[in-house]
């Protein structure tokens, strides 16, 4: 699982707001792509569609040739277990420790506690938070909370990693550290999609870019490799 294709995707919310208009693009397996655009351009909607949080009004979204818009509830949870997601507002569980937050996807997948402990500590080591595993999220800084979110997203070694404005609340140095983490993860084969409006950060990474504006795709060609974008 890793190749992602959008074919003529439209997304209109019940309020009537059209978030995506005729979006078609291909993201190759193992690629790292930035999704950019102004606020309201449709970046988060595109990620939500990939998470199956919402379904497109029209068009097809294929992940390894499977139309994810038509997944039933049983298939959906298997699909999501192969996805990692980092949210701008972290979505951490306030009443659970850092360890338990990171362990959540593994426990949901039914992994034994010994393996859970090993994998969680490995993920926390990678984000530099091993010493904070027993703290609650509210006892951490914003940057640390974001790194907990990343550890949770990568702990199950997903094939696809989605990140929505992962550096939105962070200083430039921490942003670069987090991007380096995504890059490491990409190097071991995961398809990574990062939604960000931080142009300087995107340019510094030298990765393919998909740009949206008011729901319309400005950059990113559906029939070519992600490295060959149109201007």
């Amino acid at each position: 699982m890793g190749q992602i294709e959008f074919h003529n995707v439209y997304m209109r919310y019940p309020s009537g707001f059209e978030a995506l208009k005729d979006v078609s693009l291909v993201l190759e397996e193992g690629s790292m792509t930035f999704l950019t655009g102004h606020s309201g351009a449709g970046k988060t909607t595109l990620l939500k569609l990939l998470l199956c949080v919402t379904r497109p009004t029209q068009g097809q979204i294929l992940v390894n040739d499977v139309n994810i818009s038509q997944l039933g509830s049983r298939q959906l949870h298997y699909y999501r277990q192969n996805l990692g997601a980092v949210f701008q507002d972290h979505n951490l569980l306030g009443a659970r420790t850092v360890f338990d937050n990171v362990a959540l996807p593994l426990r949901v997948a039914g992994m034994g506690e010994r393996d859970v402990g090993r994998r969680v500590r490995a993920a926390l080591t990678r984000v530099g938070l091993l010493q904070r595993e027993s703290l609650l999220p509210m006892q951490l800084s914003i940057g640390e909370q974001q790194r907990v979110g990343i550890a949770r997203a990568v702990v199950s070694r997903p094939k696809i990693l989605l990140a929505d404005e992962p550096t939105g609340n962070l200083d430039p140095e921490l942003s670069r550290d987090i991007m380096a983490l995504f890059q490491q993860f990409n190097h071991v084969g995961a398809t990574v999609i990062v939604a960000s409006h931080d142009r300087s950060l995107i340019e510094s990474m030298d990765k393919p870019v998909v740009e949206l504006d008011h729901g319309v795709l400005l950059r990113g060609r559906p029939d070519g490799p992600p490295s060959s974008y149109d201007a």
Partner: protein
Amino acid sequence: MLQFTSNRAATSLLVWTLVGIALALPAGLMLTQANLSRLAADWGGRPGISVYFELGAKDAPLLAMRLDQQPEVESVVLTSQDEALREFLQHTNLHDALADLETNPLPASLRVNVAASLTADQLDAMAVRLRKENGVAEVMVERTWLERINAASRLAQRLGWVLGVLFGVGTVLISATTVRLAIEAQLDELKVMKLVGASNAQIRRPFLYFGVFYGVGGGLFAAVLLSLGLLALETPLRGLLGSFNETLELRGFDILFVLALLATGGALGVAGAVLAVRQRLFRLEVL
């Protein structure tokens, strides 16, 4: 779940009390009905006539002998005036009052147990014949009491079912509301769980346990309420039944009854939880 529940101990106690009361009322009525039926069945097994003689009448032993020879009579129990007085003194504290009386005010009586096959008309005909016997002051056919007990039993049964349905629905709604509140309190966590790949069954399961927890707890509370109620009613019931020469032996409130109460509570609790989960978690599919 245990942590969530212990954090809301007061709520859990309140829910148990509500479910307990809702289960105890129909269960109590059904228990009453079962005992009334048993009482009626015991009486029905030996339909009879009580014959009371005029004070000082000497005809009781002779009539007892004659009745005993009749095929439709199973047995005859003669209670003389002296025996009646002794029994009365055993059941009351009126020794001093009776000591002041010059004569024994209690009549001799016959308890005529007739064959179970005797019809109501035959029983009435026998009563009419007995009323004409020498020295007889009053004849009572116990069928009247039997009819009253049967009517009360039928009423208790019907009332038990009506209240059972009403309070059963109430229990389901209590459970559904409580589970719904628990879902609302954990909505953010549930959304995150869905996003990391939790299946619907994984999301649902803890709330079904909640339903069982509240239902079984309520059933246990109902059993405690019923046993307290029986304890409170034991003395007056003993007196009432003693006046009918019946001993108090409440049946039905045993381990099977308690288990049935727990199972009913658990089933209604789960039904409520399923209702709440279906209503609320359906919306989690699309955030």
